[in-house]
């Protein structure tokens, strides 16, 4: 028997709200709800179809390790995080920005004050919900997440990333300042479940968690990620509440693989966009509710494809739909 055809049971992916309007204590002009689906992606009709997936453009505050292809494409924006974030929404058509505080990943990072400043700048420059990624170094996690969380207080950002051995600082910040959180586990359905249980113990409500089963790059293990997303969606629809969470997918190493790096400069953008697109689009089909990419051209391609996957006579409206109150 197939696994998804159990409409009688009515199991749904938990809904997670991102962003807060002025009335809710934030400054967002739009808020999103992700999740809610009761079937495999794009197969359901009516409420079982769930909320539309969202496309995020990833940017960073320190471009030293960012793809040169993207940096060439965005030009001066790369030196101005606020302007880059604004362009993601207005010029590039992303549903949201995912800001990586890559500065915190340099050895000996201690400029904590800059985090709050940049965070405020990006909040001021944008109108849609935000995803924000902090440090990956346990020694500074607590300070980094406190600064980011505090600067974004009330905005209900999606804060990342909690992992099995280091989730306390992120969770503490999400709890203290009212944010949602990304919980990442390396392509393993049981680890994903365990981390959700650990997070539950911190007191963070389940409707504030988005899971990241880790997305391998196209050609470099993407198939494992594709299948783990399908499995997570499948057991969730069978009633496993610990896994009935929206998923976020980002094949973050896409632009560093040989095929992209060694592409002829003439076609490098086209190759980069396709490499990101095929993984992100496939992740949507496997069940990701938020897909993240780095090249603005990939956002455009995804933007074009999404309405054709969605139900209804006005798919365009649905895809861009503003769900604020």
């Amino acid at each position: 028997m197939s696994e998804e055809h159990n409409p009688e049971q009515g199991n749904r992916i938990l809904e997670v709200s991102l962003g807060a309007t002025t009335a809710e204590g934030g400054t967002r002009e739009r808020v999103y709800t992700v999740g809610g689906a009761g079937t495999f992606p794009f197969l359901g009709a009516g409420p079982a179809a769930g909320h539309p997936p969202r496309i995020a453009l990833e940017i960073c505050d320190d471009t030293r390790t960012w793809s040169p292809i993207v940096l060439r494409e965005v030009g001066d924006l790369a030196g101005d995080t606020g302007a880059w974030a604004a362009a993601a929404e207005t010029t590039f058509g992303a549903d949201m920005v995912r800001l990586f505080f890559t500065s915190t990943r340099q050895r000996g990072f201690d400029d904590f004050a800059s985090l709050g400043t940049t965070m405020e700048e990006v909040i001021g420059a944008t109108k849609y919900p935000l995803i924000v990624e902090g440090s990956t170094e346990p020694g500074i996690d607590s300070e980094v997440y406190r600064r980011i969380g505090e600067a974004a207080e009330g905005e209900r950002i999606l804060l990342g990333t909690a992992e099995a051995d280091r989730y306390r600082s992120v969770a503490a910040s999400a709890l203290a300042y009212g944010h949602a959180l990304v919980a990442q586990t390396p392509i393993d359905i049981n680890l994903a479940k365990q981390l959700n249980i650990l997070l539950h113990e911190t007191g963070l409500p389940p409707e504030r968690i988005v899971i990241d089963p880790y997305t391998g790059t196209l050609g470099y293990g993407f198939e494992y990620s594709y299948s783990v997303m399908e499995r997570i969606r499948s057991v969730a629809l069978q009633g496993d509440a610990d896994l009935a969470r929206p998923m976020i997918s980002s094949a973050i190493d896409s632009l560093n693989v040989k095929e992209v790096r060694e592409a002829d400069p003439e076609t490098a953008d086209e190759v980069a966009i396709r490499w990101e697109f095929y993984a992100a689009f496939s992740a949507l089909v496997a069940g990701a509710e938020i897909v993240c990419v780095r090249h603005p051209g990939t956002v455009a391609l995804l933007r074009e494809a999404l309405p054709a996957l969605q139900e209804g006579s006005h798919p365009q409206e649905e895809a861009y739909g503003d769900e604020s109150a």
Partner: protein
Amino acid sequence: MAMKALDIYKLLPKTNCKKCGFPTCLAFAMKLASGKVDVDLCPDLDEQTRELLGGATRPPIRLVGIGAGERSFAVGEEFVLYRHERTFYHQPGLMMQVADTWPGERIERIMTRVRDETFHRVGEDLSVDGIAFRCESGDADQFGGVVGMVEACASLPEVVIADDPEAQAAALAHCGNFQPLIHAACADTVEAMCDLARKYGCALAVRAGDLEELKRLVGLCRDRGIENLMLDPAPATLRDFLVRSVEIRRRAVERTDPDLGYPVVFDTVPIDLPDAATALGILKYAGVIIIDELAPSSTMAALTLRQNIYTDPQKPIQVTPGLYPVNAPTGSAPVLMTVNFSLTYFTLLGYLEAAGIPCYLFIVDTEGMSVLTAVAGGKLTETVVADAIKKTDLENRVDHRILIIPGYAAPLSGKIEEETGWEVRVGPRDAAEIGEYLETGWEA
């Protein structure tokens, strides 16, 4: 419904006569249950049982071959909706279209590309599989002429797209002997198309947007003795294709609708979202995907996706432990230790190659676990590292005693130093930072 081995066993003669080639009826039942043998191997079944077991154990989707010669391929014989349930067996053929109204140079360019363009990835040559001729002129002679022209310079699997049986006949006169796919029969033309399929012995696609109509067409073809069929659900949008293709596959593998047990053809051209449609066809069960002229950047990504999706998921996510030279290192090059989780390996390798710094990637056996999981689960320990140093003869491969370990393995650094006598440096947690880490002086 598919049957379990024991249920099958109950219907067998239970004489263990071995005529099927298996030592016992139970052994045969187990093979049958996994779809690996045909029920006809047991000669002692009555007609009714044979039919029942055949229906329950034969591959739920028929295998259909397209093309003749080296590049020919077969699709179908699939068993599951999700690759994690087992695996997908026969990857879809990508067929690049040419229309008979296009200028000769354009047709020739596409033909040459399909014939010659290949990408090499992890031991496989990936290429677009064949050509799809589309009759747009409405003129049988013109269509036949174009098919004849391509046929003269390439022996590629082909799809002949024409609704008019006369145009089909004109094209098949040139290529019919090479097992092209005839695309497509609909209610009005089913008889004439069946005659052509019979004459040339090639596969026939039937097309209808409605599944009941598709089944009716399949029935009509079968009544005429045509069994090599494919289904075109005539999608107008990506969602049409997704919904219809999933439903066809579901009913086929659940064996609730044997009339839908045929591979699917996806003509992506009318949808006008070439990348999305091609990806969707690969993910959601197409056997043949007709594509427009995609740029190499797109075909490369599409073929890579196809390779990924059609990889057997039972294959462990591991690389062989050992010492891997990167960028031609010498004895003084840094040694970077990590785990044998494939994703970690590939990711790190990508960044190291990008950085262009000669070094050794030292892969220890953590049973395919990531660094984080391996440290937490006790699969990455100082003893594992010490053993790996011995096994790879690391001491004689480099002329220093410095080991760079992943950021996430930092808690083990002291223990590794004690156990191995090597000096341990803690590298970054994020592979993206490895280039900079090495450049700014790992020796310091």
